[in-house]
């Protein structure tokens, strides 16, 4: 009888150990399964602008993985997505990651203007200020192609060094895009350049229809 009792105790302890292991696994597993939903909630919380909150209370979660970026992009409208893509491109330039920026260029554009990475790198070094800031001026859409007009401000230089540039973006899917741009040079377009006889397309925020679709016959 005593022997039987001892046996049961040992068995019970072993069973408890196994059960604890199972429970620990389940807890870890369930946390990971629920992570994306939790992450989405966190992202939407971070995106909501709440100016009343104190600075220390705000937690800006910068998406790191591809998944996190995609989830973040899926909560944005098209204008914000395009500005994000444009920002990513310029971030590569800022960090001198020319190969990565080059990889984002539309193949035909590369072929037309920068057949080699070296040419592209030289162009960027020669035509962009050493330190710059971007100012988005306008965004228009041609079907599913977006044209962003932005001002490149020379932080260390004078206002005369400001340049205006059009960036063309096509989004294939979230975080999957190609880019091309209007060439700017030291003697090319400045902010004072006018665009005569050029029809710019619909501004995204104003309407979801084409600009020339005004009801001119009514």
């Amino acid at each position: 009888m005593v022997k039987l009792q001892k046996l049961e105790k040992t068995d019970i302890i072993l069973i408890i150990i196994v059960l604890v292991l199972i429970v620990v696994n389940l807890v870890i597993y369930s946390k990971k399964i629920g992570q994306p939903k939790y992450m989405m909630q966190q992202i939407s919380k971070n995106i909501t602008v709440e100016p009343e909150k104190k600075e220390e209370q705000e937690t800006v979660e910068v998406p790191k993985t591809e998944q996190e970026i995609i989830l973040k992009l899926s909560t944005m409208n098209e204008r914000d997505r395009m500005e994000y893509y444009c920002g990513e491109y310029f971030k590569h330039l800022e960090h001198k990651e020319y190969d990565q920026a080059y990889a984002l260029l539309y193949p035909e554009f590369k072929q037309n203007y920068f057949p080699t990475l070296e040419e592209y790198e030289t162009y960027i070094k020669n035509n962009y200020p050493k330190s710059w800031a971007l100012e988005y001026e306008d965004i228009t859409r041609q079907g599913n192609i977006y044209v962003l007009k932005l001002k490149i401000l020379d932080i260390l230089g004078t206002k005369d060094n400001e340049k205006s540039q059009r960036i063309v973006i096509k989004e294939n899917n979230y975080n999957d895009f190609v880019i091309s741009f209007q060439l700017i040079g030291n003697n090319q377009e400045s902010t004072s350049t006018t665009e005569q006889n050029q029809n710019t397309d619909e501004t995204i925020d104003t309407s979801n229809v084409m600009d020339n679709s005004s009801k001119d016959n009514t």
Partner: protein
Amino acid sequence: MEYWTQLRLKASNYVRRNRKKIIILLILWLVVIAVEYYLRNHQVITLDPPSTTYNPYNTVMSNDQEVPKEYQEPISNLIDQYFNYCNNGEYENAYNLITEECRKKNYPTLEQFQGYVDKVFEGKKKIYNIQSYSTVDNKYIFNIRILDDILANGTNDGYYYYEEKFVLIEENGEFKLSIAEYIGDEDPEISVEDDNLKVEITKKSIDYKTETYTLQLTNKTDNYLVISDNTIANEISLYLNGDERGPLNMEVAFFSLAPHSKRTQELQFTKFYDEKVNSEKLIFNKVRVLKEYDWTKGTTQENLDNAIDIYSFEIPIVISSEK
């Protein structure tokens, strides 16, 4: 102490006895962990495609109207095929996609069509985007915007576009393409006459923005008939629902008939195809029956003073098949 020794012995015995089972369980456990790790890192996120404000099948002129789902793909394919042919210089193939009526009206020969394509495409690869504009009687009118491949040139060749209306005509589930804003022709078979003048409308040609009437006129008198020579206001008008519109074509400035003569005259008026009003009648507001008339001088005061008659002539143009 004895207890823990016994427990250890028991456990080692247990493990020895059930070595295979434990190994299998461990392997299973590791497999589960590995699968979970893989799924976590290669999680397939199913999201809707990126949302945009571009909906080419939402009809601009009527926001609550959309091109039927079953027609969207055929329409898109037809337009895409047309542009591919034009971009590749396959003029004949592109020409064959256009309705016979449209070809006959706008581009009777392949060379003429080629001229049109070369002018629009400027010998470059063009991209396009479409927007449903309005729908009338199974005719789907699309606004087509044609522009340089701005992705390929980064807008370095400029940033402008050319627009025109394409009409996709549905017949028995198949679509035909009409370009250059051409809708179609009608044969009104309308004839009106009085003692002086006989007018037959032999053709009504409809573009998206205009209606053009072809008239056959007969002067039945020994006198001159002056219909329009720009000497009096509103000599000719198209009447629709209380609105009167003057002709667009300037040659009607010399619109008169010699005694017992015939002439053919085209009159073109602004009339958008998707307007909710119908054209009701053509009006010759001041038909002058004159003994003498010199078309180089136009109607003089002397002509008016000696006129045999000055009156208004109306031609009803309500056609039974008209919307």
